């Protein structure tokens, strides 16, 4: 009973004035010996609808930040609110639910299950959430249409190009209508043409209101974002809002939502 009420709350569109991410004095120290301060003194606020790129050299703390933002790891200091919910000491069950419902992940190596069709891969994202079985196929179709992959719905990933695979992965990430799209080197395995298509797709999703955070060390990927945060030695060293509008997506790329 309480869970059902909770679900309504979790599914409801949160008020737009609440930041998607609010970190205060956040840090993560991996216990030693010797202890490693992978991230410290991070104050970060990401408002709804922002497009943020996080850059920095290897070992700077990008992965740690991604882990924390994705609720895959816990802060060792500071506070972290996701969508206004304090997740610092949330039990694992709640964190998993929040992760499944409000965060969509896109990875460098796609992580599509090879024996399942594009639609089945997208539907996998609905298995751990509260989506009723009857509505899953429809939602998957809608998500694939949104990323321009409606024509390859029943194709196996092995028959798709790299760019197509990443678009299926994006469809999987957005099928649950997340608040945050968290991308980890999304174009790392793609050629320049496919990179452009995927970045266009992310821009278009962002324009439709989805908050996007991209972790990358590729300057051209970071250039698409309206805000670039660079990390060095576990600290945020620069935080630039370019103010620049993202490039308009090509007409064929933007699918009806």
């Amino acid at each position, binding site marked *: 009973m*309480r*869970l059902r009420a*909770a679900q309504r709350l979790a599914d409801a569109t949160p008020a737009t004035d609440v930041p998607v991410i609010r970190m205060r004095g956040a840090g993560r120290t991996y216990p030693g010996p010797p202890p490693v301060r992978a991230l410290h003194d991070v104050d970060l606020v990401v408002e709804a609808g922002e497009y943020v790129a996080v850059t920095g050299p290897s070992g700077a703390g990008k992965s740690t930040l991604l882990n924390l933002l994705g609720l895959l790891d816990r802060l060792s200091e500071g506070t972290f609110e996701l969508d206004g919910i304090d997740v610092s000491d949330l039990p694992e069950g*709640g964190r*998993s*639910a929040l992760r499944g419902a409000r965060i969509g*992940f896109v990875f460098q190596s796609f992580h599509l299950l090879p024996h399942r069709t594009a639609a089945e891969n997208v539907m*996998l*994202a609905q298995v751990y959430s509260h989506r009723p079985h009857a509505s899953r196929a429809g939602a998957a179709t809608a998500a694939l249409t949104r990323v321009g992959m409606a024509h390859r719905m029943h194709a196996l990933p092995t028959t798709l190009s790299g760019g197509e695979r990443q678009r299926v992965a994006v469809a999987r990430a957005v099928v649950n209508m997340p608040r945050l799209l968290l991308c980890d080197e999304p174009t790392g395995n793609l050629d320049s043409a496919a990179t452009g298509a995927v970045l266009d797709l992310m821009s278009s999703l962002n324009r439709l209101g989805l908050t996007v955070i991209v972790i990358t060390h590729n300057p051209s990927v970071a250039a698409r974002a309206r805000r670039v945060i660079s990390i060095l030695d576990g600290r945020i060293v620069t935080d630039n809002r370019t103010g620049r509008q993202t490039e308009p997506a090509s007409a064929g790329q933007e699918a009806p939502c």
Partner: protein
Amino acid sequence: MLGRRWAVTGQSRYCLRDLVAESLAGLAQRPGRSVLTMLGTVLGTGAFVAVLGLAATANGQIGKQFSTLAATTVTVNDTGQPQGLNSTAVDDFPADSDVRAGRLHGVVAAGVWWQVQLQDSVISTSPDTIAGSADDNGALPVFAASPGALRAAQPSLGVGELYGSFDAQNTEPVVVLGATAASQLGITNLTAQPVVFINGLPFTVVGIIHGVQRLPQLLGGLIMPSTVAEQDFGPPQANYPPQMVIWTRIGAADQVAAEVPYALRPDDPQVLQADAPPDKWDLQGSVDAALEDLFLSLAGLSLLIGAVGIANTTLIAVLERTGEIGLRRSLGARPRHITAQVLCESGALGLVGGLIGASLAVWIVIAVALTKQWTAILDPRAALLAPAVGAGTGLLAGLYPALRASRIEPLEALRS
């Protein structure tokens, strides 16, 4: 505070239908490997059920064969002591034992028999054979059997006839030869009316028997009416005490055994001890149990090997699928969901292995029973238990891989 936050986030859920569907999909992705992994469980549970089924089937068959004979045989032993100071003779059966026992309900035939004690006997087909010569068959046993005892043995006659009460009453010097004794004496047919000499006394051979249902020792010797034996060689001795054998109707053995001492010796029934033959089930049961234990431990061993196989394959599958597991975690799976799925997969392998094994075993039991024309007997509980045992094995084997899977760090897995 905590309550409110839970109310906001809810719980990530993995419903049973999804769990089963995802696990089966995981197995179906690698059908060849799944089948090979199952093999150990198939063999283990199959052997388990087949052993139980074959043992029950064979037991039922043996039981069927023995029960006819067991239910129709009663023996009465003389437990009396020799009477008189210098006597070794034991004879507590009355002279009219055959008639007295025959009056009881359920008795088909009954009579007293014993082995005649002969000293330095010479048995031959010619009267002047010297003891120890090649023609001497003195080692052949000589049995005294009343006509009723001979009939109760249910002999199958080769040639000639059995002696009857007329011969017994008139102490006619006749013998019936067991097949083995007849061939030793070189007697195969009765057209020449052969005579056997025992210590010089002539006995006319009236018949040769080839088989008996009871008293198999008769086949190896010479059988004469007990009256003749008593007249020529004296009463039965303590080292070869007389015994009554009774052929009863089916199911009457216990009743006859209870009544016969009183019918024979109403004055002193304790001197006679009547028994239905020992239940063959006990002996057979213990032999089978030893064999069954051996086979069951072999079945257990193959089940163990099957479990190791499942554990091994599941662990490899988990290590191969770290990326998939990380992905599932990122999609909202809790560690326990991962554990549940791995356990479900290994359990399903065991369950299906158990099902296949049990069905194979049922067919084996049926096939063996058909070729031997036996009745197939299989405890349905054994057949139903097998899939459960298989599933249990699978679950047990999946424990460690499941634990490993649940500890996989999602982001590391996703970046590899």
